[in-house]
């Protein structure tokens, strides 16, 4: 079994075709639509997208976009994105130069007396149980996308009622900061 190192498994196992863009945008209404619309009309594929207020001030938000670098050359995606007036800066992170994390929540149907196997999975994957009732549990894993992939595969052996992943957020590895 290919068990990842929980939490600290910071060498991503994800395919190399993806690229991570960390995009600082003005926090104005419609900005997400501008970014998403650009990807749609230019035929650039998005694997995942996460938005949150940025660290600097309430004026800005950070959008972490995992793009399919095979759907279009990365320089073309960055070039078009840069032209959006509300886009302030773009950091282009190659997977090997980035710390990527993702959060996963999953609710599994399982009776109180039949949880040993599942608890084992929870233990080895580094997940945590965050909610319980008599016939189901909800687990949480925050880790590398690869670790989430592995746990998701593990859970295929169980009766998964709901599973939700946030999509990844990323920052440059220390010493690898570069911006476009």
């Amino acid at each position, binding site marked *: 079994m290919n068990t990842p190192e929980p939490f600290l498994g910071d060498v991503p196992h994800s395919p190399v075709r993806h690229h991570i863009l960390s995009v600082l945008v003005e926090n104005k209404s*419609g900005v997400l639509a501008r970014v998403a619309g650009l990807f749609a009309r230019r035929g650039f594929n998005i694997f995942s997208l996460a938005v949150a207020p940025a660290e600097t001030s309430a004026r800005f938000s950070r959008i972490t976009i995992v793009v399919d670098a095979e759907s279009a050359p990365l320089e073309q995606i960055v070039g078009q994105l840069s*032209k959006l*007036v509300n886009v302030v800066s773009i950091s282009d992170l190659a997977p090997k130069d980035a710390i990527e994390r993702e959060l996963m929540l999953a609710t599994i149907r399982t009776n109180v007396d039949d949880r040993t196997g599942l608890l084992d999975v929870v233990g080895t994957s580094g997940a945590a149980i965050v909610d319980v009732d008599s016939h189901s549990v909800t687990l949480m894993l925050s880790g590398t996308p690869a670790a989430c992939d592995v746990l998701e595969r593990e859970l295929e052996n169980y009766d998964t009622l709901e599973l939700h992943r946030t999509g990844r957020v990323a920052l440059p590895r220390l010493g690898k900061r570069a911006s476009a």
Partner: protein
Amino acid sequence: MKLTGAQALIKSLEQEGVEVIFGLPGGAILPVYDPLIDSTIRHVLVRHEQGAGHMAEGYALATGRPGVAMVTSGPGATNIVTAISNAHMDSTPIVVITGQVASAAIGTDAFQECDITGITMGITKHNFLVRDVQDIPRAVAAAFHIATTGRPGPVLVDLPKDLAQSTMEWWYPSSLEELDLPGYQPAVAASPSLIEAASRLISDSSRPVLYVGGGALKSEAWDELRSFAERTQIPVVTTLMARGVFPDSHPLNLGMPGMHGVYSAVTALQRADLLITLGARFDDRVTGKVSAFAPEARVIHVDIDAAEHHKVRRADVAIRSDVKTVLRAWESERVLPRDLSEWWGQINEWRAQYPLVYDPPTEEGLLRPQAVIEAIAESAPAGTIVTSGVGQHQMWASQFWPFEEPRTWVNSGGAGTMGFGVPAAIGAKAGRPERTVWCIDGDGCFQMTAQELVTARAEGIPIKVAILNNAYLGMVRQWQEMFYEERYSEVYLSPDLPDYVKWAEAMGCVGLRATNLAEMRAAIDKANSIHDVPVVIDFRTDSSEKVFPMVAAGASNDDIMVHPLQRSAQ
């Protein structure tokens, strides 16, 4: 000073030096039309909002200054979408003001509400929905700044009615910082090392071509281009968007490249060992089949928009800069290619063998459209501005009108918008009233926006319109003839319906008709003698005329089809 939002909008436009607004009022924009009465700004009342947009474009293309259009919400706004898209494709600086329903009504499907910022997100350089009356000056100033800097383009400002009616304390941004555009940095310093790398490619080339696009006009680089070309003797091709940036009469100018380009221009690009690409974007109408385009050429690509680099054709040296700056740098380096005498020998053979030709006109037969254009050009004063719609007549106008001056060719390139010609001519004439403005139009195009001749007559804007009336949607007909086994589907329009002379007269213009060469000469002379009202001439032309040369869609430029008169020689 307290002003209403409406007053602040008009005052902001005055601050930006706007001299004319093309527009049409309606409910949501109504408050803004009141202070307009007291403004020095001229308003041209259009008959359809699309016309307002194309007039703003024609004004911008003829003057180099941003054009302004103002319309109401809902259908007023959607009617101008075509013109916005057209300006976006051709990087034309226009500012469009749209009225919007009151702030509280936004999102409720109110009367004449539509999400125009959403609709135009992909076809504007940027747009604003103003949310605070105090922000009106900033939005207007930012709109003009964005529209006219970097790669120019259309900017839309959507103004809710309640903001126009409420009160603000007047101010106007006095610095770029006050525009609050942290993500907009259009100014770039061209990299000296890249300019140097490009110089080395030029020095190393023996078959270079200057592939000059609309960006050369936008950066007003005509003097620099001419000095550079004359000193280096590098041949020049001018794309549809660049016609006039380099004189057609100049011996170094091979003319227009592309699908209907001049044989020598198309073939020089194909055989070149270096493309010096200046503000052009490798449009599919220029490249033909991309993988077969200029196969032996290395590429220098100068463009202010970095996203154009490597988009279609990978460049060996890509320089983010305006065209003028790079040409000046090369001039100061005195860069020179290798000996070009062999290259010119080859080019001159192509020129001699395949000049632009058409079947000779006869005195009694239907008119040759190319002959009509040449006859108008011969009698037109120097500096005449020419506009066109889209189709065969547009290609013939580009081929057969001798363009000698920048900003004398006003047409719809990237978007290919039929109906562009008449309103664009009105906008051009409003911006440069001292110039003669001819619209070379097709009968199909004319029918799309002809009502703006009412505007032209009412506003005293005396343009001249030449309808090359072949009774067909000619370019579609040409494709059906050549590629669909002459199965003509929905392309016949009739030469007599409508009656263009009566229609022109009904719109307050002089209407003339010419069916043969003698009538053609008489009609042109008559049109040239009229300076106070618009003139429309219905030229009856031969519908079997096709535009040549032609490269079929998706074909290699090597497979260029020359005029039938030249085929035995091929």
